[in-house]
């Protein structure tokens, strides 16, 4: 999971938005700050151009080894398109039948309830810590559609006040968001539901005015404790 905020993204310009929810995958190239080799490789794999090169590699290599096949291969762009399409649509993405088999309707609803429950708890804590009392907070969870790769999950907190924007999240906020997924509800669990619904962007909202005074007090006391 990559939490999208100023301290985790090197190209901060992509965090600007004029409308909510802000979507990233397929629209901008994300350059994480740190994040580890695994995340970098996964983000590279998300780049279509690089991914297309893999199925096209045989079309480059065959002429090098076989003169007989060189002309037919180089003059077969339609085959290249078909191969790329086959890899992208049938290999990298599950078929409709496979998506339906991933998770049944009841389990999908249960997982989405879990996501909503945890997301709202995070949003309440974040609203209290940031002293937000107006507008609506959104926890936006975006996942890559690619099925045979490890899940790529982007999580951001967005608000419409005073204008559409992504919240700048500190260490406490990121730690709280880290609890959205755990061993009982993994990114892969959510991806299975997303494949089933072919919906890869989930938005959970919380009105800032509905955050309890209890939560606000807890945030104030935590801050004072940390400062002392």
């Amino acid at each position, binding site marked *: 999971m990559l939490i999208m905020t100023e301290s985790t993204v090197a190209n901060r310009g992509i965090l600007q938005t004029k409308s909510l929810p802000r979507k990233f995958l397929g629209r901008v190239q994300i350059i994480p700050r740190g994040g580890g080799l695994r995340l970098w490789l996964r983000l590279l794999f998300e780049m279509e151009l690089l991914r297309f090169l893999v199925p096209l590699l045989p079309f480059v290599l065959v002429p090098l080894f076989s003169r007989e096949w060189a002309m037919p291969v180089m003059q077969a762009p339609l085959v290249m398109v078909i191969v790329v399409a086959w890899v992208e649509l049938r290999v990298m993405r599950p078929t409709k039948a496979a998506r339906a088999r991933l998770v049944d309707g009841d389990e999908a609803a249960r997982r989405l309830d879990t996501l909503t429950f945890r997301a709202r708890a995070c949003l309440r804590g974040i609203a209290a810590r940031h002293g937000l009392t107006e507008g609506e907070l959104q926890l936006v969870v975006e996942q890559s559609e690619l099925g045979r790769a490890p899940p790529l999950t982007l999580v951001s907190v967005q608000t419409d006040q005073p204008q559409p924007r992504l919240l700048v999240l500190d260490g406490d906020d990121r730690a709280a968001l880290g609890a959205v997924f755990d061993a009982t509800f993994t990114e892969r669990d959510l991806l299975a539901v997303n494949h089933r619904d072919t919906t890869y962007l989930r938005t959970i909202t919380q009105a800032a005015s509905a955050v309890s005074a209890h939560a606000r007090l807890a945030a104030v006391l935590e801050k004072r*404790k940390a400062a002392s």
Partner: protein
Amino acid sequence: MTVNATTVSAGEALRVLQAAWDAQAAGALTASWMLHGRPGVGKTEVVQTLATRIGAELYDLRLTTIEPQDLRGLPYFDHARAKTVWYRPEDLPDTDAPAILFLDELTAASPALQPTVYGLLQERRVGRHVLPANVLIVAAGNQVEDGAIAYDMGTALSDRLVHMIVQASADDWLTQYALPAGIHPTVAAFIRTRPDLLETTEDSLRRGQMIACTPRSWTRVSKIMAAVPDRALRQVMIAGTVGSAPAAEFALLADEISATVQIDAMLATPRADRAALYPGTLHGLTALVYGLVGAVTEATLPAAIEIIADLRGQGAPAARGLPVGDLATFGFELLISRALEKGWADAFASSAAYADYATARQAAGLP
């Protein structure tokens, strides 16, 4: 003609007007705002609260009592220039200080006054008297179906305004208005238990009764409770304010609360001896919560925290099977909000009673 605008509570209307003021102050939006609503729902209080909050002077013009010339001013003859000159009326703001021009009872204003009001709303001027840029124009009025004196608003006037319909909401009134306004705890407890009696204008009209309950009438009841100690006299006044049936119901609650709620005594009594002082009914406990939150000071906050925390068990009420857990949560919501507003949060950090309550709340998985 129906007002097809959004219906909002008084608290929400206040937030919209605050945003309108902020936008106007930033030079982004200058508009005139119209609050529709039944008599007594709190339209005037909304504007008064906004004026206090933004530090603006309130120019309250009751349009049913003025003539066009009251806004235009008086002419005099300038002999030197051979011209008629108009004196500016003192009812129009004319300084650079923040101000709100409140055109109350706009829908009841005489049609003869409307052209003058059009000028104010659209061009922000009457004759040569121009309103300064830092004046926010807010109008208010009843609708024809509210049983008040009102004319249908023509499209020319309607088009010059941004409309909202203000509706009484018990929850909003209790949390946003009652505490800051110092509403008597008995009135607050009564409205919490009978939220349907906060506003009964429609019901009264249907029954052909002249007196109805409104937020404004309950505010007056609160003042009567504080000002008139004689029970019999008070009862006559309250019946004349909210109607005889709600007044009778209110009197039962008031008697019970006055006999059982002892806020000052509870605050002064050590924790171990307080159990016997808790009221024995939910009405009494509700009034206790409102009274405590209204009366609390920084010095008495630790005791108030203990009293609300102990609602759950130490006092007798829990043993009597009353739903005091909800009331404790509600009481703490009010008390914490007040403490955060006043900067008294430290009292909660050092309170063992609150620590116990917070632990129990966390164990119950409450947000």
